[in-house]
């Protein structure tokens, strides 16, 4: 167990180094760092839990596919429709396919996918591992020398890291389809000229950045859910808290990462 208490039986309460609360923040940060570091220590060491990784990938995709299809499609329609008036002012509605392609690839698809996955997948990982902690299933793996971290955490983090980028590409595609439906109804654009406009607008850097970004989003969702669940406190309440904290924390981190990636990609583009 990670939080050990080494003070003797009747010692004075330890003096806080800074303040009690700040001390705790740094202790928690250290805890998180060790949890994440353990992933990189264990992910490359055999035996690999191949079957379980595939099962988890499937679960991630299966859980979020329906909602992502719907949301992606609607986002495509709505974003196109709402952008039209502004472009119409300049008589530039023919730019709609390019605009929507850039918006989807650079920002909308990765964000929509990651946010939906934190809600559906992140909360699930938090709740699942949390209830395994509470019912001592994780302890049971540990006492049978079966490395619960490897079986439960490494597999889930790998699954989200690999699957979320794929889902993001899928969301981009579905979103573009939504946009096409809207564009073809209003402007009677043909499919081939729509596709031409789309590929004319996006660059390799856009696609690359989108994949790399969602790679990090996926890692974040798996890691946060696993950390919250794995370290869940005892009792049913702990499970609920773990699920909830997984969603809130990973959404927060996803926005921070989005801001960072914006800075990095802009620098690359400028340079």
């Amino acid at each position, binding site marked *: 167990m990670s939080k050990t208490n080494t003070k003797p*039986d009747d010692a004075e309460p330890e003096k806080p180094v800074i303040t009690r609360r700040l001390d705790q923040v740094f202790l928690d940060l250290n805890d998180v760092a060790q949890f994440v570091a353990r992933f990189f220590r264990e992910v490359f060491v055999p035996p690999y839990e191949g079957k379980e990784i595939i099962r988890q990938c499937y679960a991630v995709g299966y859980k979020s596919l329906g909602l992502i299809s719907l949301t992606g499609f609607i986002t495509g329609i709505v974003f196109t429709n709402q952008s039209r008036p502004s472009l119409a002012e300049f008589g530039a509605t023919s730019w709609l396919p390019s605009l929507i392609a850039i918006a989807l690839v650079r920002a909308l698809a990765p964000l929509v996918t990651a946010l939906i996955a934190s809600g559906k997948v992140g909360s699930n990982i938090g709740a699942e591992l949390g209830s*395994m902690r509470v*019912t*001592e299933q994780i302890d*049971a793996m540990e006492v049978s*020398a079966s*490395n619960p971290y490897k079986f439960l955490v490494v597999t889930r983090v790998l699954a989200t890291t690999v699957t979320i980028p794929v889902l993001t590409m899928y969301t981009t595609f579905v979103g573009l389809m939504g946009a096409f439906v809207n564009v073809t109804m209003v402007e009677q654009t043909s499919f081939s000229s729509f596709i031409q406009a789309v590929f004319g607008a996006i660059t390799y850097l856009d696609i690359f950045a989108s994949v790399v970004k969602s790679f990090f989003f996926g890692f974040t969702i798996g890691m946060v859910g696993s950390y919250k669940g794995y370290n869940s406190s005892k009792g049913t309440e702990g499970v609920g808290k773990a699920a909830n904290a997984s969603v809130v924390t990973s959404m927060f981190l996803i926005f921070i990462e989005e801001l960072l990636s914006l800075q990095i990609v802009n620098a690359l583009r400028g340079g």
Partner: protein
Amino acid sequence: MEEKNKTIDRDNAVIQIRDLKKSFGDLHVLRGVDLDIFKGENLVVLGRSGTGKSVLIKIIAGLLKPDAGTVTVMGEDVANLKPKELDKLRLKIGFSFQNSALYDSMTVRENLEFPLVRNVRDLSRADIDSAVEEVLENVGLSQTINQMPSELSGGQRKRIGIARTLILKPEIMLYDEPTAGLDPITSIDINNLINEVQERNHTSSIIITHDLTCAKMTGDRVAMLLDGRFERQGTFDEVFSTDDERVKAFYDYNFIQ
């Protein structure tokens, strides 16, 4: 009661606990525990709820770290082992959890295979199957092999939990309240199972219980945890021949006078 067929080696302590202390915040749970478990022996640990019986065996299995004192299991100081060494030691320890702790997303078969395939390399499918069938037979639940834990009764879950630890042929068994919440007949089955395991595999065991019938049937020796220490140890009759109210209360409740 029939005489059990076993040999206890009183010179060979497989678990040695010295001045063990453990607190959670201001709650001093274990306050200087000394205890020896000898090879081939069933030791029953009694004590009120919340006295730290589960904490004690979790420290023995390395799930919790002690604040002070030493726990030596088969010559190894548990608290100071590296993760690899601790895992090696844990292969020799079977831990039956208070509420079974079966993996509820896996079938009974997958539960039993789980520790086996992760610790014994190069097993063929046939080896795995025969090992699973053997332990299931030992606990008398062969028919449950493809069921999910949620479909089992409390007593069946307990026995599957024990089977899952037996599959690695441990030398030490730690049972946390094996008969709690079970009817008398199932309890007797479990007590017999504990004795069978001891006789068949020559294991040394700690059996935590509130059930004095279980204590009497399985225990070669009884130790009672009172206020964070083992104040009374000995045979069943030695422990209960006292005027100490705390001890007598246990006896009176179990065997209605």
